[in-house]
C-alpha cells in the first residue's frame, strides 16, 4: 500500500511532464491558463507531497489498530502495565506526587522509589495528551490515551522520517522513507495500539534528535543544535536507549574528524548539543550524574575535549606560519592531551568516581557476556541474539535494499550520508546482538532502503522519459546532477534499455507491494496480540479466547486482603500490582538481583524450605502460570531453569544439574527427583494428575511439553490451592499460617 505511492514521489521532472500532459488540452483555450497551470504544477507537487504524507500519517496510525479491533482497547504485555499504573497515578495525583512517589506495593519489603527509577517521558507525554484532550472537552479515559499513544507517535515518526530522508537525500527519498517506516514490522512490533511502552515515544525522539543534529551539522546553526539538545532531552526522559545517541553522535563526530571533515559547523553543532543535552539530561532523576560519572558516557566527553583540542590546534596553526614548528607542536599537544585524558580516566575509574560499564552495555558489545555472567539479562527473551528469520520477518525486502542504499550513500558521500551510514551499521550490529534492538535499527534501515528505492526509481524513470522525449532532456539537464550520469548511459543507447527499465520498475513495484502485503500480514498475525489475553484456534477453526490472566488478577483484587503479598516470578509483578492491586515481592523492574534470586530459590526448593523463605518475606499468596492444560508454552515450567540459574547465582545451594537428567530438562517420569518435588513443580502440577487434557492420552498429560507428568500424587503441606482459572493458566495458592500445635 505504501509502496504504491512511491513512484509519484519522484521530484520535479515527472510532475512537470504530468503537468505538460494535462496542460496540452488547455493550450487551445489560452496561453494564460497554461501559465497559471504551470505555476500550479509546483503547488500540485506540494499538494501531492502533503497528501501522500497525510495518507502515510493516517496509514501508520490505522495499521496499528488491529489489536484494538481484534480484542479490545487494552494495555498489552508486562511493562506497559507499570507505565499505565504510573500514568494513572500521575493524572490523579499530579506531577510532584508522581515525582516523589514511593511505591510500597512493589518489591516488598524494599519498596521502590518510582520517581527516581523510571523514565518519565512516556507518562508525562500521555498525561499531557490527556490533559489537552480534557481541556478541549474530550472526556476520554486515560486508558484510551495510553493505548493510542504508541500509534500516534508512530505517525509522528513518519513525518520526522520524511524530513530526515529529505535532509540526507531528497524529498523523494523522504516520502519513501516515511512510507516504509509507517508499516515496517520491526517498528510496528513495539508500537501497536496498547503497547504502551517507552519505545513507543522513544523511537520518535531518537529519530528527531538525529534529524536535528544532522541538520545542525549541515547548517552549523545554533538553533538546530539547540533543537537537537531538546530532542535528546526528550529521548533521555523517555528511554534508556538514549545511551545509543550519546555514543553514536560522538562516534560520528570522531569519524568526521578522522576523515578530515572537521568544520566550524560541526564544532558548533556538537558542542552545543553535548553541553546542553548533558545539562538537560541531568534533570532526569534516573539518569542524574551519569553523564559525568558513568563509563558509557565517557566517550562523548572525550570527543568533546578532542574537539576543543582540534579547535585550539586550528588556532595555533593560524598563528604559526611555520609548518615544521606546527608539526612538533601538534605532536606534543596530541600526546599530552591523550595522556591527560588517559590518566583522568584511569584515576576516575580506580577511585570509583567513574562507574564501570554496566552489564547490559557489556552484553551489547560482547553477546556472550550475559549468558556467562548475568542470567537475569540472558533470561529475557527479547535480550536473545537475533535469528536470521526474525531479520527477514521484520525487514522483508529492506534487508537487501539496505546494502543497495549503502552503495548510493557511499556514492554521494556527505556529512549527512556518513551519519546515516554509521547509524545503519552500528544499529544493525546491535540488532544482531539483541532481538529488541531491531527496533533501533529500523529507522536507519528504512531510511537507507528508501534512498535505494528512490534513487533506483528515479534513475529508471528518467531513463524512460529521456528516451521518449529526446529533445526535452536538454532542458531538464540542469536540474540534478544525478541525471547527467543517466544521460551518459543513455547516450550509449543500449537496445533494450527502455524495456529493461520498464521491467525493473515493475519489479520494484512488485517488491514494494509484496512488502506492503507482508507488513500487513505480520502486523495482523504476529504483532497485534496483547499477550495478556491469549487466542487459539479451536478444532473447528473457531477462535478461542483465554482470558485467564485477567480472571486471576481480578480474583486477587476481589478476594484477598488489601495488604496481602503475592509471590510470583518477576514477569508477572507489574500485572499483579496494576490489575490485582496487591503487593508483590519482585516485578519486572529487575533492579535487585538478590531479591529475585530469593524468589527463584523459593520456587526451586522443597516445599518446607520454600515455606521458611516465604514466611520470611511475609508471603500470603503464590501465583504460578501453567500452560499444561492449554498448551501455552511460555509458562513457569518452561521458565523454570532460569529461576534455578538466577537463584543459584546468588545461593549456591541451588545447583542446576540437580534439576536436569543428562543435561536434559524433563518433567515426566524420567525427571530428577529434585525437579519432581520442588515447589514450582508441585504448584504447577497439583491435582493435574487427575485431569485428562487430551483425548486418547493418559491423565496428567502436559500439552505444553507433550509428556505425561512424572509426579501425579502431589500433596501440599504448607500451601493450599486458593484459585485456579478456568483454563488452568494461572494458579494461585494460599500460604497457610504455621500449624497450631507443631
Amino acid at each position, binding site marked *: 500500500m505504501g509502496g504504491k505511492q512511491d513512484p509519484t514521489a519522484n521530484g520535479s521532472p515527472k510532475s512537470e511532464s504530468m503537468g505538460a500532459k494535462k496542460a496540452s488540452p488547455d493550450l487551445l483555450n489560452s496561453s494564460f491558463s497554461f501559465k497559471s497551470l504551470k505555476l500550479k504544477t509546483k503547488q500540485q507537487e506540494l499538494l501531492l507531497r502533503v497528501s501522500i504524507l497525510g495518507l502515510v500519517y493516517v496509514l501508520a496510525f490505522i495499521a496499528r489498530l488491529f489489536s484494538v479491533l481484534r480484542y479490545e482497547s487494552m494495555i498489552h504485555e508486562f511493562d506497559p502495565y507499570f507505565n499505565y499504573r504510573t500514568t494513572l497515578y500521575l493524572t490523579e495525583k499530579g506531577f*510532584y506526587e508522581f*515525582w*516523589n512517589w*514511593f511505591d*510500597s506495593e512493589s518489591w*516488598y*519489603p*524494599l*519498596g521502590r*522509589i518510582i*520517581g527516581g527509577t523510571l523514565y518519565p517521558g512516556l507518562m508525562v507525554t500521555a498525561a499531557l495528551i490527556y490533559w489537552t484532550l480534557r481541556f478541549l472537552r474530550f472526556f476520554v479515559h486515560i486508558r484510551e490515551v495510553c493505548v493510542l499513544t504508541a500509534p500516534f507517535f508512530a505517525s509522528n515518526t513518519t513525518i520526522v522520517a520524511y524530513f530526515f530522508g529529505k535532509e540526507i537525500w531528497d524529498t523523494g527519498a523522504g516520502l519513501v522513507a516515511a512510507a516504509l517506516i509507517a508499516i515496517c514490522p520491526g517498528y510496528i512490533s513495539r508500537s501497536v495500539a496498547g503497547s504502551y511502552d517507552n519505545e513507543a515515544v522513544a523511537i520518535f525522539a531518537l529519530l528527531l534528535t538525529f534529524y536535528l543534529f544532522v541538520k545542525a551539522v549541515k547548517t552549523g546553526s545554533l538553533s538546530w543544535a539547540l533543537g537537537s539538545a531538546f530532542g535528546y532531552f526528550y529521548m533521555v526522559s523517555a528511554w534508556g536507549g538514549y545511551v545509543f545517541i550519546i555514543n553514536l553522535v560522538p562516534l560520528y563526530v570522531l569519524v568526521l574528524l578522522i576523515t578530515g571533515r572537521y568544520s566550524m559547523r560541526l564544532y558548533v553543532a556538537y558542542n552545543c548539543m553535548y553541553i546542553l543535552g548533558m545539562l538537560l539530561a541531568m534533570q532526569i532523576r534516573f539518569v542524574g550524574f551519569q553523564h559525568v560519572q558513568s563509563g558509557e558516557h565517557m566517550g562523548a566527553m572525550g570527543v568533546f575535549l578532542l574537539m576543543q583540542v582540534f579547535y585550539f590546534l586550528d588556532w595555533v596553526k593560524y598563528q604559526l606560519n611555520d609548518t615544521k614548528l606546527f608539526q612538533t607542536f601538534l605532536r606534543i599537544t596530541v600526546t599530552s592531551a591523550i595522556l591527560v585524558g588517559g590518566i583522568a580516566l584511569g584515576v576516575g575509574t580506580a577511585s570509583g568516581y567513574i562507574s564501570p560499564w554496566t552489564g547490559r552495555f557489556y552484553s551489547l558489545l560482547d553477546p556472550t557476556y550475559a549468558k556467562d555472567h548475568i542470567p537475569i539479562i540472558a533470561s529475557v527473551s527479547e535480550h536473545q541474539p537475533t535469528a536470521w528469520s526474525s531479520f527477514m520477518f521484520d525487514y522483508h525486502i529492506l534487508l537487501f535494499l539496505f546494502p543497495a542504499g549503502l552503495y548510493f550513500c557511499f556514492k554521494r558521500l556527505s556529512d549527512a550520508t556518513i551519519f546515516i551510514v554509521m547509524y545503519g551499521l552500528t544499529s544493525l550490529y546491535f540488532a544482531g546482538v539483541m532481538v529488541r534492538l531491531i527496533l533501533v535499527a529500523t529507522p536507519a534501515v528504512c531510511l537507507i532502503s528508501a534512498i535505494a528505492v528512490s534513487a533506483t526509481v528515479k534513475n529508471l524513470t528518467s531513463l524512460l522519459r529521456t528516451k521518449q522525449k529526446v529533445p526535452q532532456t536538454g532542458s531538464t539537464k540542469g536540474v540534478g546532477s544525478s541525471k547527467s550520469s543517466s544521460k551518459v548511459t543513455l547516450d550509449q543507447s543500449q537496445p533494450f534499455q527502455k524495456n529493461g527499465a520498464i521491467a525493473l520498475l515493475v519489479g520494484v513495484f512488485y517488491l514494494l507491494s509484496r512488502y506492503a502485503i507482508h507488513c500487513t500480514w505480520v502486523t495482523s498475525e504476529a504483532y497485534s496480540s496483547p499477550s495478556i489475553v491469549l487466542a487459539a484456534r479451536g478444532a473447528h477453526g473457531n477462535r478461542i479466547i483465554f482470558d485467564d490472566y485477567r480472571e486471576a488478577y481480578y480474583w486477587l483484587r476481589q478476594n484477598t*486482603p488489601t*495488604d496481602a503479598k503475592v509471590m510470583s516470578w518477576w514477569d508477572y509483578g507489574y500485572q499483579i500490582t496494576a490489575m490485582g492491586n496487591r*503487593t508483590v515481592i519482585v516485578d519486572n523492574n529487575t533492579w535487585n538481583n538478590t531479591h529475585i534470586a530469593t524468589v527463584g530459590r523459593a520456587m526451586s526448593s522443597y516445599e518446607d524450605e520454600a515455606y521458611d523463605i516465604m514466611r*520470611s*518475606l511475609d508471603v*500470603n499468596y503464590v501465583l504460578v502460570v501453567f500452560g499444561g492444560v492449554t498448551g501455552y508454552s511460555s509458562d513457569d515450567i518452561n521458565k523454570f531453569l532460569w529461576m534455578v540459574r538466577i537463584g543459584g547465582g546468588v545461593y549456591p545451594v541451588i545447583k542446576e544439574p540437580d534439576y536436569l537428567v543428562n543435561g536434559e530438562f524433563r518433567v515426566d517420569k524420567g525427571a530428577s527427583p529434585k525437579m519432581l518435588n520442588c515447589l514450582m513443580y508441585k504448584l504447577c502440577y497439583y491435582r493435574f494428575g487427575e485431569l485428562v487434557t487430551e483425548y486418547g492420552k493418559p491423565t496428567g498429560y502436559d500439552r505444553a511439553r507433550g509428556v505425561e507428568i512424572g509426579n501425579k500424587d502431589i500433596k501440599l503441606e504448607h500451601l493450599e490451592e486458593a484459585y485456579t482459572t478456568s483454563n488452568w493458566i494461572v494458579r494461585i495458592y494460599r500460604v*497457610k*499460617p*504455621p*500449624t*497450631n*500445635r*507443631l
Partner: protein
Amino acid sequence: MMNLSRSVALISLFLLPLLTFSFSVDNPTDRRVLVLLDDLSLKSSHSIFFSTLKSRGFDLDFKLAEDSKLALQRYGQYLYDGLIIFAPSTERFGGSLDSKSIAEFVDSGRDLILSADTSASDLIRGIALECGVDFDEDSSAMVIDHSSFDGDHTLIAADDLVKSHAILGKTKIEAPVLFRGVAHSLNPTNNLVLKVLSASPSAYSANPSSKLSSPPQLTGSAISLVSVMQARNNARVVISGSLQLFSDRLLRSSVQKAGSPNKYEKSGNEQFVTELSKWVFHERGHLKAGSLVHHRVGETDEPAIYRIKDDLEFSVEILEWSGKSWEPYVADDMQVQFYMMSPYVLKTLSTDKKGLFHTSFKVPDVYGVFQFKVEYEKLGYTTLSLSKQIPVRPYRHNEYERFIPTAYPYYGACFTTMAGFFVFSFVYLYHK
C-alpha cells in the same frame, strides 16, 4: 462444616495477629469443662482435684468416655471451653468424638488436660502425639527410678519442676510430686511443648515386672512426667503420664524421698495440680495487647507513611488476666523491633506500670516497608505476636537542603564565572 470453620479460623488468624484466641476476649478463663472418664469411680477417687475446680467456679460435666451421646459441638458451636480426659484405657470414644475432633477443639483455642497411664490406649497416645508428646511405645513400661522414689521404685518423688511463676504460681512447691505412670518424651522439633515435671537423671522407662533384656529407650532427664503445650493460638494443653498424680490418694499422701532426711506431711501434688489447672484454664499468664500505637514526636495521629530519620513514638498497652479482671502487666523485657527482613531498631520498652509500654526512636536512614513487631514469648505466658506494617519513604525533592555550606566554593565559582564572562564579552565587544 469443619473445613469452613477451619478456614474461618485461618482467615481470622491471618487477619488478627493479636491472637487472644479464647472464648471471649474479655473473659478468657474457661467456664464449662467436659470431663471424660473411663470409669465413674474416678469421680470419687479424684474428688479433691475436681472439687478445687468446682470451687473456682468451673462447671464440670462428667461423662463416660464411651457415652454414645458425646459431642463437643452442637450446631457448629462448641459446648465446652475445656476438656479433661481421664480415660487412659479408652480405645474409642462414644458419639462423634475422636482424636481429630479433639485436635480441632484445641485448634479452636480451647484447653485440654490429658492424662495417660500405664497401658494407655492408642487413642490417647494419638491425641498426645498430636500435641508433640510421645509416650513410651512399650505399653507395659513405667517410669522406674532407683534413687528418687517413695517406697516403691515406680512411685517417683519428682522435684524437678519448671521454674515459671506463670505456670506453677508464685509459691514454691516444697514437697516432691508423687508420680506413678508412663514416661513420655517431647518431639524435639516442636518448640511449643515443654516439660513441667521432669524425671531425675537416674530414671528410666521399662516394664517393672520383667527383666531388662536391652537398655531402655527412654532414660534420665529426657523423660518427661508432665508436659504442657501452648499452641500458637494460645490454647493450653497439659499432658500427664500418670492419672494417679491427680488422685486423692497421692494428693493426701505424705512423702519422703528415698535417702532424703526431709519428710513432708503432704505431697506437692495438690499444689501442683491446682496451680497447673489454673494455668491451663487461663486463670494465670494470660496477656492481652491493645493495638500498636505510633506517631511522630509532637503529633497524635498515626501517619500513613514515615520519612527516613523521622522521630517517632511507639506504645502498646498490655494487660494481664488475673482470673477475675484485667490488670496492667508489668515487665521490663518487652521489646519492639522496627523490622524489614531484619530488625533495624530493637528497643526495650519502658512501662508506666499501668500497662502502657512505650518508647521513642528515630526511623533509620533506610526506606522500605517496615513493621513494628512485638514478639513476646515468655515462659508460661501467652505468646504475643503483634505487627503493624508501615512504609518509610525517602526525602521528597523539596525536603533536601537548598544550599549546603560545604558547596559554597562551587557556588562562588559559578557566579564568578558568570560575572567574568559578562565582563569579558563587554570588553571584547566594545574595546576597539
